[in-house]
């Protein structure tokens, strides 16, 4: 291996695509306020709108680019939706919030906030592959349901939800449907119409673009209460001077993600499978978490009984391999991954879980390096462990 470190934490964030980087550098001097009427402002605005169109196209909303609202990222997009529901619920008859047990903390904590404000909130469970229990969802959704919020794909285990089925249930009850598609966009085809969603959250830094920029897709007619009030930007949905460079980077990243998606998916799937099969072959009792098929092409979550996740992560780190873990030790809390626990994985397997998330730069040589380094690390930790593998 001549290239270190081996970065396998693309679900946490991605490096800039070289083309995005070049574009952003070239655009650094497009400083004009995109709200200004003069020529420089109009030129910046044209680039903002071209970026908006590219982002819209990426999620199947190409016909309605004005339905894309730029935000500071996934957390802001999610918070905007939940804040909107807060205002709607206070005034209207519907107050019920239905979400899942495996959402990102951003949605979970937004839902808990509404709960603390007196909104009835249901956290629907998932099966042992991390797929939402549709019968449970059906039972939870009713005429008092205001919002259904289901993540499109999970950040930890990669399991992809059947959004069309979720939509049928939400829409039959007349509820608004939001999906946090932060991990899905750029990794699998995303289509707001076939998914039947009213709101869709995305974040640029997960698709080889810059941090600090994201978007919210808003279906025509769906209500929105601005989280940030001020000027007239984004049709009054989100105030604040246009983040030119972030938005331009997002536009380029979205164009590239759409164009490269088939090749990307084929490539990372093959590498992910090579890693998965290699681990299964070389490491006894390794347990693959998540769905075997309906899973993000780049994500592999594995539990190693008898070895603890933070120790595995740090031994890998010392070998120049960057991954993440669902262990409590790494989270700073006392509880291991809420996602793995929700899939029925016991605390020991959750503590011993490692997420490998591959990306467009991952090579076969890197995967083989991991397959060479990982087995002795697990064997060593198991040998000094009180827990039988």
């Amino acid at each position, binding site marked *: 291996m001549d290239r270190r470190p081996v970065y396998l934490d693309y679900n946490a964030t991605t490096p800039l695509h070289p083309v995005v980087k070049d574009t952003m550098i070239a655009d650094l001097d497009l400083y004009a306020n995109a709200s200004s009427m003069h020529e420089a402002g109009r030129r910046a605005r044209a680039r903002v709108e071209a970026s908006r169109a590219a982002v819209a196209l990426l999620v199947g909303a190409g016909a309605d680019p004005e339905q894309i609202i730029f935000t500071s990222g996934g957390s802001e997009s999610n918070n905007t939706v939940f804040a909107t529901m807060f205002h709607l619920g206070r005034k209207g008859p519907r107050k019920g919030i239905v979400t899942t047990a495996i959402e990102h903390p951003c949605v979970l904590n937004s839902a808990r906030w509404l709960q603390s404000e007196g909104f009835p909130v249901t956290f629907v469970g998932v099966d042992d592959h991390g797929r939402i229990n549709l019968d449970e969802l059906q039972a939870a959704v009713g005429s008092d349901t205001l919002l259904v919020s289901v993540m499109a794909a999970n950040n930890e285990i990669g399991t992809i939800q059947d959004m069309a089925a979720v939509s049928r249930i939400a829409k039959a009850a007349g509820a608004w449907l939001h999906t946090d598609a932060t991990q899905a966009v750029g990794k699998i085809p995303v289509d707001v119409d076939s998914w039947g969603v009213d709101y869709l959250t995305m974040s640029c830094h997960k698709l080889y673009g810059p941090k600090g920029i994201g978007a919210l897709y808003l279906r025509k007619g769906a209500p929105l209460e601005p989280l940030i009030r001020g000027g007239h930007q984004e049709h009054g949905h989100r105030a604040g001077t246009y983040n030119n460079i972030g938005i331009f980077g997002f536009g380029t990243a979205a164009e590239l993600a759409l164009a490269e998606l088939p090749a990307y998916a084929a490539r990372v799937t093959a590498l992910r499978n090579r890693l998965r099969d290699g681990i299964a072959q070389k490491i006894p009792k390794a347990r693959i978490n998540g769905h075997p098929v309906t899973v993000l092409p780049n994500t592999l979550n594995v539990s190693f009984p008898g070895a*603890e996740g*933070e120790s595995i992560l740090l031994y890998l780190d010392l070998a120049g391999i960057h991954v993440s873990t669902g262990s*409590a*030790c*790494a989270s700073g809390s*006392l509880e291991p991954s809420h996602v793995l626990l929700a899939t029925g994985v016991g605390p*020991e397997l959750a503590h011993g879980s490692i997420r490998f998330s591959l990306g467009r730069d991952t090579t076969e040589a890197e995967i083989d390096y991991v397959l060479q380094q990982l087995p002795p690390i697990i064997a060593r930790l198991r040998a*000094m462990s*009180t827990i039988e593998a």
Partner: protein
Amino acid sequence: MSDMFAWMYSDVVKDHFMNPRNVFSPDENFSYDAEGITGSVKCGDQMQFMLKIKDDVIEDVRWRTYGCASAIASTSMLSDVVKGMEIKEAYSIKPNDIAQKLGGLPDNKIHCSVLGDKALRAAVDDYLVKTGREGLFRNEGTKVICTCLNITDRDIEEAVKAGARDWEGLQERTKIGTVCGGCKKEGEELLHEYVHIFA
């Protein structure tokens, strides 16, 4: 701080994590006089100490740990420290003593990963039972938490082991904090920690 970013822990922790001392190996046929284990898989950390003891002095030691880097490092460090130590002194070692020798640990790590002292005490207790001196060190190295009723951290630990899970349950068993109540905050913190480790 820069060291913490260069690596998560101090150089000493890193060294003990990478080169743990006195790890138990089944091939070695280490014979020992006492053993103790503490922690659980559920909480993510478990430690076991095996002691060879002569004339109440720890002659040699082996250990096994399931846990994070600081759990491994702290157990390794402790195993070095107690070699040649009298069991009475070993009984009084506190998590903070180990953390200090390791060049410091993040706060949250001291509570959840430094269980070595408790496993060590369990091993010494095992030895005391085997030599007909059960409970001899019961009050060794304890800290009074409730000054009104002279209730120690050890009393709280024992109450949790016996089934106390919340403040009311702890009060039922120990009467802690039933006079002035000034110890409630510290008592609850210990209760929370022990429930995590022992429940």
